[in-house]
């Protein structure tokens, strides 16, 4: 059963006289519980695709369905509420709120969704325990290492039990060992909870841990079931 469907997505950026077609009529489906990697050379439209599918950016044309809800038909508020309830986000640079502690950052999506503070705190602590950071719960992001920050981000992305999690270069700012830990964690959560992960990455090792790779080039999907090898060969070929 597909959780994400999109049809003929076009995204065009216009800056003065310059028009850049970031996405050129993308159509695809992602099944529930899959861990999908999106790979391709720089500027091929990976992050744009993630933004358009998750609803944090508008498409120029085309349609997107998440869990059979047509996202492209929703207004901004409805889209935001949908994101808060059904999606989680992991960014390359963590993007935690520096003024909140780890647990406060994690419980933020729950509070936005209207959970009671006590319940939110309980769930957040449970998630932090899952990612191995319970004892660091009261620390602010500035006092955590890069890996710890990203694990807090993962916990924040999963705290409201989302149906799907978007990760944009989740290991881009981490050393190899920490990156492996974070990926292992994501894989474990994916397998345990059956949540769908869509991971935009440059890193072949990250790609290798995914169920399949969506290979992109120049705003188009080259291969929906590609391999890391094929993507790497493509990148090398194009310099």
């Amino acid at each position: 059963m597909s959780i994400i469907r999109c049809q003929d997505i076009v995204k065009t950026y216009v800056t003065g006289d310059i028009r850049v077609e970031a996405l050129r009529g993308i159509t695809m489906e992602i099944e529930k519980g899959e861990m999908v990697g999106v790979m391709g050379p720089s500027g091929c439209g990976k992050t744009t695709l993630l933004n358009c599918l998750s609803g944090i950016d508008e498409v120029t044309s085309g349609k997107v369905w998440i869990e059979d809800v047509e996202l492209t038909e929703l207004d901004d508020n409805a889209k935001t509420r949908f994101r808060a309830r059904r999606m989680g986000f992991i960014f390359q640079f963590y993007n935690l709120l520096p003024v909140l502690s780890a647990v406060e950052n994690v419980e933020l999506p729950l509070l936005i969704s209207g959970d009671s503070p006590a319940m939110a705190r309980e769930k957040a602590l449970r998630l932090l325990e899952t990612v191995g950071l319970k004892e660091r719960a009261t620390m602010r992001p500035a006092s955590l290492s890069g890996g710890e920050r990203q694990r807090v981000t993962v916990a924040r992305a999963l705290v409201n039990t989302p149906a799907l999690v978007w990760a944009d270069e989740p290991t881009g700012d981490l050393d190899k060992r920490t990156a492996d830990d974070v990926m292992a964690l994501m894989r474990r959560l994916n397998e345990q909870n059956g949540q769908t992960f869509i991971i935009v990455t440059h890193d072949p090792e990250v790609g290798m841990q995914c169920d399949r790779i969506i290979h992109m080039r120049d705003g188009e999907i080259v291969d929906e079931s590609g391999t890391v090898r094929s993507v790497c060969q493509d990148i090398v070929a194009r310099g």
Partner: protein
Amino acid sequence: MSGWRTLIKVFLAAVALMIPWAFLSTALSLVMDILIIVLLTFLDARNNRVTFTMALRYALRRPSTTALVVCGLMVGTAIVSASFTMSDTLDNLILGEVTEGLGEVDLVLGSRFSTSYIYFDDTELAPIVQQLEGSEWVEHASLVCLENVVLLDQRSGLSSLSNMAIGLDGDMVANFGHFYDGQGGMLADPPSAVGAYLPPGAALELDALEGDPILLVRGSNVLPLQVERIVSEEGLGGYQLSSGQFQISSSVFVDRGTLQAWTGETGRSNLIFVTLNEQGGENLAEAREEVQSILQGHPSLDLQIIQDKGEILEEGQEALSAFTSLFFVFGSFSIIAGMALVLNIFTMLGEERKSEMGITRAVGMPRSTLRRLFTYEGVIYGAVAAGIGTLLGVMLAYLMILSISGMFGFGDLSIEDSFTFTPTGLAYSYLLGFLLTLGTVYVATARISRLNIVRAIRSVPEPPVPIKDRRSFLLGWGMMAAGIVLAVLGVGLENLGVSYSGLSLGALSLGLLLRRYLGDRLAWTMAALITLAAWLGQVFGLKVFPYTAEIEMLVVAGLFMLVAMLLLVMFNSDLLIRFFTAVIRARSSYRAVVRTAISYPLKAKFRTGLSIFIFGLVIFTVTILSMISGIMNYNIPIMVEETSGGFDTIAFTLDPRISLEQDPWERINGTDGFLRKENVSNVVSLPTIGVRVNGTRMTEDGTDAYQFDTLGLGVDRRFFTEGYYPLAEWDTERFATEEEVWESILDNGSLAIIDGGLVANMNQFAPIPDTPGLMLGDSFQVMAYDGTLSNITVVAVMKQSALGGLFVNLDTAYEDFKAPGFNRMLIDYAPGLDVREQSVLLEKDFLDLGLSTISVKSLAEDITSAVDSIFTLFRAFLAIGLVIGIVGLGIITIRAIHERRLEIGMMRAIGFTKRMVIINFALESAFISLLGIIAGSLLGIVVGYQLWVESLEGQDFIFVIDWFPILIVALLAFLATMLSILPAARGASKVSPAEVLRFE
């Protein structure tokens, strides 16, 4: 080595700045100093061209930021300039009024008895005039007659009650400044024997025209004259001699011989006018001394200097300087707020350019150059801002003067015509504004220049100062030492402000000294609590230093208490967050908004602290002003009621020698005049007469003799049974109740109750100069005008002081004091009537006696409205500070949004709606402004209470808090803040998450 070089440079610069003061006037020296500072800056810039070019380009890079910086900087200068201009204008006003009102009459000599002057034969006075004219200081001296009269214009039918007829000769007119017509032409002749010269004020009141027949009325005496000229107030035409209670007299000029004949004092005069020559004007003290020694040569006449132009000028300037110093005091709050804003702006500029500055430091720019860069930028901003601010201040002062002139009845005074500013005032304002800017910028750059290069380049936030930081520890010791020095200095000077500043500085230094042992939170909380305890203890009577508080204490108290309060809040912010998130029962999904909205401001402690400080400081002052005005407005009507005894009107004859021949009640009830008899419900009449008191008092140095003139008032039982005149103190050993005291004076003619004004420091409204300082139990001799002597003992003191004199029984008033009859009435009108209107009718009915009235309740309304007006004016002045606070918050919000675009994007991505983003920023600003408003109001109430305890409680003022203006100002400030940040918050809500997450 470079340290020595800097020291030498600073020394040379200081010498250069001092040189002009040795040779030039103040104004020119100030201008020269400004030029020297600019020149030195440019000389320095010549050796640091790149740095100067960078500073110039930074200043010009973002016009909107530059405009904001200049606006913030110019506020301080504008307030200084407005205060100087106000001071110059009020000086000019008093100088103009005194010069115009007294013409060339420098001294007036006479012998006062009660409210009139004793006549002497001209032959007795002639030798004195001769001696005076022989003095090296005196230009001319002339004999003059002066009488209180009522004027009636027979053509217009209008009358004027309170006038002084001044009888003068032709030579006197020539020597004392001449008369001028309306076009400024000098009049050759004095008034003829059948004519009168009217000044414009009297002419307006009478609607008189030249040629009108007028009557001068004094008791039953009437003198018909003709208005020969309506003269301008230039020269002698503006001359006025104030006399008696409650009245502002205008003058009517007549021939001296005519006045003498009419008053039955032919060949006699009661005043000598003296004009000093140039040397006399320059050596006033010596001139006065010589005139007095001449007068002492004729002791039998007992002549005194009764009017001294120089003294009036000095007293006027002194009184007004108290008023202008209030502008400086209240203005200083706005100046401090402006400085805080500049500090905030420059800190933000530093943060905005952090990464660029990191790179310049990385490629080799030393810290000192970075600081120089900002200082150059400060000089550029400061030079422009101080110039604009100075001009703006002049305009601001003009607007305030216009509003003052609209608010108050200054009589004939025209304050807007006196508007002026001096080059010295402008130069001071510019220099002060410029130096304030430079000083503030220099402090701000100290923070900026300490940046860590790597963190700056990567835009990583600065970590908190480590608790073992040596620099802050040393700074703590420095603060402690400065505190001790100040406290010792304060004790030496017996100055509460200085000593408490030292104490507070010492207490606050504990924060820096103890943080390495106790941690930030505990150390700063302790320091703040000790500081607050010192000030609050003082409010509740636990004074560390037993000195009297001056008005300037307000500034010191406000500053230190607010700083302490801020430290308390900022270092216990987690408790505050917990409190707010628990208290604000937001709709479930908005709990997240509340948390982020409060967490952000409390994280940026310095920036938030400064903003709260600005708000708090202004609200603090507004609260104090509102409290004082509330206390005044509440108490003045009560006191006026006590003064009036509960009667609607006090009526009295201007000349106490003139009295009613029949009981006024009978006269009013006898027949309807202008005033209908049924309109009057009660009349209590008192015989009143001028008397002279002679007494002695035992002092530490022996016996002290005193003598003064006052009124004797005869009272009967109705006075205190139908009227309400509470006593401030009485002989409690002899009398149990106030009524017993009153009964005792009815029974015993040697006992008197005196008004509060005769006792030192008992006056309710204003200090009376040369208060006789009588005390309960004093016994003295009273001399009537015919020389009859009687012994009187004071058994009680009244609270009121407007109805002044010795209150005795009717027998004593008539037989011993020789009161001629009733000449004072306390009147109640039928309910619902316009008191002022009825009083005018009463005056018309008693025109022949020159009866004047005071409508007590209307007077209370006038006073409270004047008090209100002056406080409104000060509040308006402070509104500038509030604008600074609001602008400051607007800037912070814009900056915060700019800094947090990425975080806003992330918040939007994880579920914050646009509305939640707007509410987030609105809540942040609301939180800051509310903290400022709450802190300022609380501290304002505490200090307002202290002001009441120190200055008003002793005068029987009841403590009240007028919440309305405090709440209105707080509400307006809050709403204005919300409105000012709304556009920026809406902009934040439109941040595209996809864009910022990708590109920033």
